[in-house]
């Protein structure tokens, strides 16, 4: 077992445990902290693959900004323990089989197509920040500008939604 493989399995176990913990925890704050564990583990996996810019963005935007927003809202609304109502029968009987079916389908497709994809080599040159930014400002410049418009609309929407009407 080589070192990258060991690192992969440790990070993968961390991510899966975080996701399971997100499901099992009954307090939203604990779920949010579990989700942060998943995101940090995924950032480590990106680093392992050699995608250092995406790893940094993952930590800063996901682990930093978005999760802080979540925790802000949880504390603002003073969310307590999740209450157990008798939830719909469809969720009880169809939930786990549905998730297993989707994961199994994806995994089967991956395993059957195995061998065609070369392993990601963390060369660094392939997806250096320079390459990414060149691509972002030449080939993808139109979608890039559109995202700025999207963020503007999202800011306005959030303000309009959250303000108190009088």
């Amino acid at each position, binding site marked *: 077992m080589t070192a990258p493989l060991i690192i992969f399995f440790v990070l993968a176990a961390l991510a899966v445990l975080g996701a399971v913990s997100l499901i099992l925890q009954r307090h939203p704050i604990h*779920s949010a902290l579990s989700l942060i564990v*998943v*995101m940090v583990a995924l950032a480590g996996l990106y680093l392992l693959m050699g995608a250092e810019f*995406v790893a940094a963005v993952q930590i800063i935007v996901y682990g930093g900004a978005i999760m802080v927003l979540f925790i802000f809202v949880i504390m603002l609304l003073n969310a307590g323990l999740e209450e*157990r109502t008798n939830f719909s029968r469809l969720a009880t009987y169809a939930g786990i089989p549905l998730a297993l079916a*989707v994961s199994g389908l994806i995994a089967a497709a991956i395993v059957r197509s195995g061998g065609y994809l070369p392993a990601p080599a963390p060369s660094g040159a392939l997806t250096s920040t320079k390459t990414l930014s060149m691509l972002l400002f030449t080939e993808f410049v139109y979608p890039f500008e559109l995202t700025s418009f999207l963020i503007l609309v999202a800011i306005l929407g*959030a303000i309009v939604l959250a303000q108190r009407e009088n």
Partner: protein
Amino acid sequence: MVPTNYYLILSAILFGLGIVAFVFKRNIITLFMAIELMLNAVNLAFVAFSQSLGKPDGEVFVLFVIVVAAAEAAVGLGIIILTARNRHSLNVERVDLLKL
């Protein structure tokens, strides 16, 4: 080296766990976190494919996904605050105005 398939299987597992969380959790904020978990799983697959095929396009796509997730979180949490203020509850079972 770690085979690409390992990354893809991990991505599938995380996506499945996201579905389980979305179906079983009753707190509206936790449901939102389940959506973020599924987006993260898809991002992992994007980066794995991008590195494996030697094309940086997939990583540019991940950046767009993150931007959209941030916008979605801002608007979605605004809607959650509004719902909580009107219904005095964060339970999705109580948001049933359209239910017969």
